[in-house]
C-alpha cells in the first residue's frame, strides 16, 4: 500500500492546492522514504513525508523486500501498447490522466505515437478494462479489485497500470481514513494521511478536516491549526472555507483562532466573528467562566442593537447583571423587549429593575407574564414582595395590589402573604394584617416572620391572650417571640436579625425587624400606662418630654435613657436636639447616639448621615461603621442583593473581624450566587467551630455541588 506514496504526488491531481505543494504540517518522526524515489520529473515535496512502517516488521521474515518504487513492469514493451486506458481518459475528459497515460506509454514504447484524436471510434477498447475504470470511477474499489482479479485469471499476463493501482489505493485509503475518523481512531487517521498525502487536497477538503481533528484530538493542536491554515490559504470554495473556520472554532481555543481569522477574504467570516463574540460573552456566564474581551462585548452589543436581536440583547443583559451593572442590563433587556416583547425579556428586565431598587417597575414589567412559567413567577413574586416592602412605605394602587393578592392566593406563597401582612400593618390595618399572617402560617406552618407578625398584630389589637399563646407555641423556636415586650432584650440589631435561610429573596426579614422595633416604644408606653405612673420620677425618661423642651445637654441624657429603654425612634429626636449644643463633646456624643439609634431602627443610610453630623473618635467611627455595614449587608441579603451583601461584608471586614453569624451570611450569599464551592468552604469552617446554624448551610451547599457535578 505504501510503495507509491511519493510517485503519486506527481499524478496530476488537477488542483491548485497540489501545485501549491507544501502543506506546513509534517508528521513526525518521519523521513522521506528511500524506497520511493520519484521516477520522473523533479522531486516534489509532499504534504506529508512518506513513512516505512518499520516498527511492525522488526524480526519478521519478509518474502521479498518491498522496495518497488517504479510502477510494476508492463506487459510487454515490444508489442503494441494497449491504448484502452488512454481512450477511456479521453472519453471521460480527464486530460490530466490522459497526458500521464501518454507519457507512460511513451516511456515504455519509445517508437509509439499517441493517436492524433484519442476520441476516434475506430479503436476497439478492451471492455474489461473499461469496466474496471468504470468501477473505480464509481468508487466501487471492492468491485474494481474483484474485476482485476478476474481479468488476471483470464489473462495471466495482465498487470494493472500503476495509475489504476494507485487510484484504487488512494480511494481505499480515503475510505479507511473516514472510517477511522468516524470511529475516533485518531492516531490511525494521522497514520493513513501520512501514507496517502494525495488524499489531502482542496478537492477532498473533508479529508483535511478529519486530519485536522485527528491532530487536535491527539494533542497536536498546532498541527491541527496548520491544517486549517493550509485550507484557508490554498482552497477557494467559499462554503468549504466557511465550514473550515466553523470546525476550527469548535476544536481550537480562542488564541489559536486569531491567525486563522486573519486569513479571511472579503469579510467572509463576519458571522463567525460575531458568533465567537457571542460564545465569549455566554462563556463568561458559566461557572468560573473567563471574562470576555471588551472587543467581543462591543461587537456583540453593536450587532445586537443594530439587528434588534432579542436573544443576543438578553444575553448581554444577563452578562451585565452578572458583572453587577444593572443599569446597563436594564437597557439591554428593554431593547430586547421592545424588539420582540416576550416573557424572557420581561424576566431579565424584572431582575434588573429589582436590583436597581425599582421593584414597582419590575412588578409592572413582569405582571403580564407572571403565570407563564415557574421561573418568571418567582421573579414576579420577588418583585411584588419588594414592592410591598418599600421603605418608606408607599401605597400600592388597587390594580397592582389586586394582582399581587391574586398571585399570592393562586400560588399559596406564604412569604408573599406575610409581606401583605406587614404592608397592611404599616397602613394601620392590624386586623387585615393578622388575617394575612394567619393565611401565611396556614400555608407554611413554620414561617417564623409570619408568627411574629401575627404576634405584633394581635398585640396592636389588644389581644393579649393570642400574644401569649404565640409566645407559648413559638417561644422555643424564636428568641424575638420569646422576648417580645421584654425591654432589655434588644441590645443590638444583629441579635434580632434571624440568620438567613436558604429562602427566596422576597422574605425581607429586615423589614419585619424594623417594624418590630418601631413597635417597641408602643410596648413601653403600654407598660407605662399599666404601671399607673409608679416610675414617673424626675430624671427618668419614662415620661415623654418633647425634645425642644430640654436643653441640648438634658436632651442628650434623655436620649441615652430612651436608648436604655430601647426606644430608639424617640431617642433619634432627642439626640437631634443635643446636636444644637455649642459643646463639641456633646455634639459628638449626640451624633454618635443618633447614629446608633438609626442603626437600631434598621436604617443604615440615615445612620451614616447622622454619624457625619459631628466629629467622632476613631473608636466610635469604627464601631458605627461596623454596625452600619453589618446592617447593610443583612439588608442587602434580605432583598436578594447577594453581590451587594458580599461587598458590604468585605467593607465591614476592614473594621472588624467577621463573626460566625456574618460568616454564615457570607456563605449563604455565595450559595445564592451559585458559588457553591466557596459557600461550602465557609460553612465548613464555621460549622467546625460548633456554630450549629452553619450545618444546614453546609448540607445545602454540598447537595448543590453534587447536583451541579452530576449534570
Amino acid at each position, binding site marked *: *500500500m505504501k510503495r507509491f506514496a511519493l510517485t503519486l504526488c506527481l499524478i496530476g491531481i488537477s488542483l491548485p492546492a497540489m501545485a501549491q505543494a507544501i502543506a506546513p504540517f509534517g508528521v513526525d518522526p518521519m523521513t522521506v522514504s528511500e524506497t520511493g524515489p520519484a521516477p520522473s520529473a523533479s522531486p516534489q515535496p509532499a504534504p506529508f513525508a512518506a513513512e516505512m*512502517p518499520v516498527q*511492525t*516488521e*522488526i*524480526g*519478521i*521474515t*519478509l*518474502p*521479498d523486500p*518491498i522496495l518497488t518504487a517504479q510502477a510494476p513492469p508492463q506487459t510487454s514493451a515490444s508489442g503494441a501498447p494497449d491504448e484502452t486506458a488512454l481512450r477511456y481518459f479521453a472519453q471521460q475528459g480527464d486530460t490530466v490522466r490522459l497526458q500521464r497515460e501518454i507519457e507512460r506509454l511513451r516511456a515504455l514504447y519509445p517508437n509509439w505515437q499517441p493517436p492524433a484524436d484519442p476520441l476516434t471510434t475506430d479503436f476497439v477498447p478492451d471492455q474489461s478494462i473499461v469496466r474496471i475504470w468504470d468501477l473505480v470511477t464509481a468508487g*466501487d*474499489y*471492492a*468491485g474494481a*479489485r*474483484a*474485476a*482485476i*482479479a*478476474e481479468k*488476471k*485469471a483470464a489473462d495471466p499476463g495482465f498487470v494493472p497500470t500503476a495509475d489504476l493501482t494507485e487510484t484504487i489505493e488512494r480511494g*481505499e485509503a480515503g*475510505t*479507511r481514513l473516514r*472510517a*477511522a475518523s*468516524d*470511529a*475516533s*481512531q*485518531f*492516531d*490511525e487517521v494521522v*497514520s493513513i494521511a501520512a501514507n496517502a498525502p494525495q488524499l489531502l487536497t482542496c478537492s477532498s477538503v473533508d479529508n483535511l478536516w478529519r486530519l485536522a481533528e485527528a491532530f487536535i484530538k491527539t494533542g497536536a493542536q498546532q498541527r491541527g491549526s496548520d491544517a486549517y491554515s493550509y485550507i484557508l490559504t490554498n482552497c477557494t470554495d467559499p462554503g468549504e472555507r466557511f465550514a473550515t473556520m466553523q470546525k476550527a472554532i469548535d476544536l481550537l481555543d480562542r488564541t489559536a483562532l486569531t491567525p486563522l481569522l486573519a486569513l479571511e477574504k472579503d469579510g467572509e467570516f463576519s458571522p463567525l466573528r460575531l458568533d465567537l463574540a457571542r460564545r465569549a460573552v455566554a462563556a463568561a456566564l458559566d461557572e468560573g467562566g473567563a471574562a470576555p474581551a471588551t472587543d467581543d462585548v462591543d461587537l456583540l452589543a453593536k450587532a445586537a442593537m443594530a439587528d434588534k436581536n432579542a436573544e443576543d440583547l438578553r444575553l448581554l443583559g444577563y452578562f451585565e447583571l452578572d458583572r453587577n451593572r444593572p443599569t446597563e442590563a436594564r437597557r439591554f433587556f428593554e431593547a430586547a423587549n421592545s424588539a420582540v416583547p416576550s416573557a424572557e425579556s420581561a424576566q431579565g428586565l424584572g431582575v434588573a429593575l429589582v436590583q436597581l431598587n425599582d421593584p414597582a417597575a419590575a412588578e409592572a414589567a413582569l405582571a403580564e407574564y407572571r403565570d407563564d412559567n415557574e421561573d418568571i413567577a418567582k421573579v414576579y413574586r420577588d418583585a411584588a414582595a419588594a414592592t410591598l416592602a418599600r421603605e418608606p412605605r408607599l401605597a400600592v394602587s388597587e390594580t397592582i395590589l389586586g394582582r399581587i393578592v391574586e398571585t399570592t392566593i393562586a400560588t399559596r406563597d406564604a412569604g408573599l402573604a406575610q409581606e401583605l401582612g406587614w404592608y397592611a400593618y404599616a397602613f394601620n390595618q392590624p386586623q387585615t394584617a393578622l388575617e394575612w399572617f394567619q393565611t401565611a402560617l396556614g400555608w407554611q406552618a413554620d414561617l417564623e416572620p409570619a408568627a411574629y407578625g401575627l404576634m405584633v398584630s394581635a398585640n396592636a389589637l389588644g389581644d393579649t391572650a393570642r400574644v401569649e399563646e404565640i409566645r407559648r407555641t413559638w417561644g422555643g423556636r424564636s428568641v424575638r417571640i420569646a422576648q417580645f415586650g421584654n425591654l432589655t432584650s434588644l441590645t443590638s440589631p444583629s441579635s434580632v436579625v434571624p440568620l438567613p435561610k436558604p429562602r427566596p429573596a422576597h422574605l425581607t426579614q429586615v423589614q419585619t425587624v424594623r417594624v418590630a422595633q418601631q413597635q417597641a416604644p408602643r410596648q413601653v408606653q403600654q407598660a407605662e400606662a399599666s404601671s399607673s405612673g409608679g416610675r414617673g420620677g424626675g430624671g427618668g425618661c419614662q415620661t415623654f418630654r418633647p425634645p425642644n423642651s430640654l436643653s441640648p445637654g438634658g436632651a442628650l441624657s434623655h436620649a441615652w435613657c430612651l436608648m436604655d429603654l430601647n426606644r430608639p425612634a424617640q431617642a433619634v429626636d432627642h439626640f437631634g436636639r443635643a446636636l444644637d449644643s455649642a459643646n463639641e463633646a456633646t455634639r459628638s456624643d449626640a451624633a454618635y447616639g443618633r447614629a446608633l439609634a438609626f442603626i437600631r431602627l434598621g436604617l443604615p443610610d440615615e445612620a451614616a448621615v447622622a454619624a457625619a453630623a459631628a466629629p467622632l473618635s476613631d473608636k466610635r467611627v469604627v464601631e458605627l461603621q461596623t454596625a452600619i455595614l453589618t446592617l447593610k449587608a443583612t439588608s442587602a441579603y434580605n432583598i436578594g442583593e447577594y453581590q451587594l451583601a458580599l461587598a458590604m461584608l468585605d467593607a465591614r471586614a476592614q473594621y472588624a473581624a467577621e463573626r460566625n453569624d456574618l460568616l454564615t451570611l457570607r456563605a449563604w450569599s455565595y450559595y445564592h450566587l451559585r458559588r457553591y464551592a466557596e459557600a461550602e468552604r465557609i460553612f465548613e469552617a464555621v460549622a467546625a467551630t460548633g456554630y450549629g446554624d452553619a450545618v444546614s448551610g453546609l448540607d445545602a451547599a454540598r447537595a448543590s455541588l453534587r447536583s451541579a457535578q452530576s449534570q
Partner: protein
Amino acid sequence: MKRLATLLLGGIMTVPACAAPAITPEEWQSYLDAFVSPEGRVIDTANGNISHSESQGYGLVLAALAEDRSGFERILNFTKTELMIRDDGLAAWRWEPDADPHVTDTNNATDGDMLIAYGLLLASDLWGETTFFTEAAAMVATMGRNLLVSADGLPAILPGTEGFAGNDATAGQPILNPSYWIFETLPRFDSLDPVIDWNAVTETGLELLRRASTTPAGIPGDWVVMAGGAIGPAPDFPAEFGYNGIRIPLYLMRAGLDPAFLEPFRAKASSAGLFKIDLATGNAMEPIDEPGYRLIQAGMECVATGQPVPEELRTLQTTSYYAATLQLLMLDHLRRQRPNCLGLEAQS
C-alpha cells in the same frame, strides 16, 4: 513464492499446488450469494446482519480455500477499509449496518485478527502476492506482542485488547476463550516471527483441554479462567459449553492434532449432533442443531470409528452464516485429508 505451512503434528492442511480446490465453485458461489455483500461484507445473518472481524476472517480463509481471488479481493477490501482502522493495525471486532458510525466499539477480537492474518497467508501462498504476506506478518507481530498473556504461567491468547485482563474475581488471571485457539494458524505464525513462541501457545491450548477433561463436563466452557493448575468457567459468563466451543473439535481435526483430544467432545455429542452443555452438571441443555454443526459431530465419529459421515451432511446447507462457515471448513478438511469419511478412496 508458494509457502507451505509448517507441519506441527503430522500431515495437515496445505493448499495443493495443482489440485482443484476442495470447496467447489458451486458451493462457494452459494455461500457468497447467501452471506457476502457486493462490498465484500460477510454478514452474520442470524445476528442482526452485522459483520465481525471473525466473519471477515472466515470469508478470507474460505475464499482462499475456494481459490476465488475475486471474492477474496472484495472481502479484503471491506475488511481493510471498514474494520482495520485501529491505531494498532488490527481489526475492530464489530460492524453494524444500522449504526452511525458503523464501528462503535473499536475493541478487537483476537480470533478475528488471527483468521484475517491466516487468510492473507493462504492467499499469499496461492497467488504469490507479497503484500498479502507483508500485511499478515505485521498483524501477527502485533498480536504476538500485544495479545499474548500469561495464564496460570502459560502463554495464552487474550481474547481482545480491552476487557479480558481479569480482576479479583479471577484471581488476577485473564479470561480466555478456548475456541480462539485456531490450531492450524499457530505453527504458521510461529514460522513468521522468530521472537514469539507461537508453538508454546499451541501447547497451552492443549493443556487447557487436558485440564477441562478432568472437570465434570469433560470439556471447557466458552469463557474460562485457568488458575492453580485447574480450569473453571469465567465469572460473569454463562457456565456453559456452546456455540463458541463447538469449533474446538473442528480446529483440532483441521490441525491434525491427536484424536484423543476429540474424545471428550465426542462423548458429549450424540447421534443427533452437538449440544450446549451445562458445565456444572455435564448435562445437555439444548441441541446445536444445523447441518453444519452436525457435520462436526459426524466428523469426530468418523475419526474415531471410520464410519463415513451421513450423505445429507456432505452438501453445503446455507442455513446460517455460522453453521455454513463451519460446514465448509469441515468439508474442506474431509475432502482434503479424510476422503474415507466421504466414502472415497484415499488420494494418492
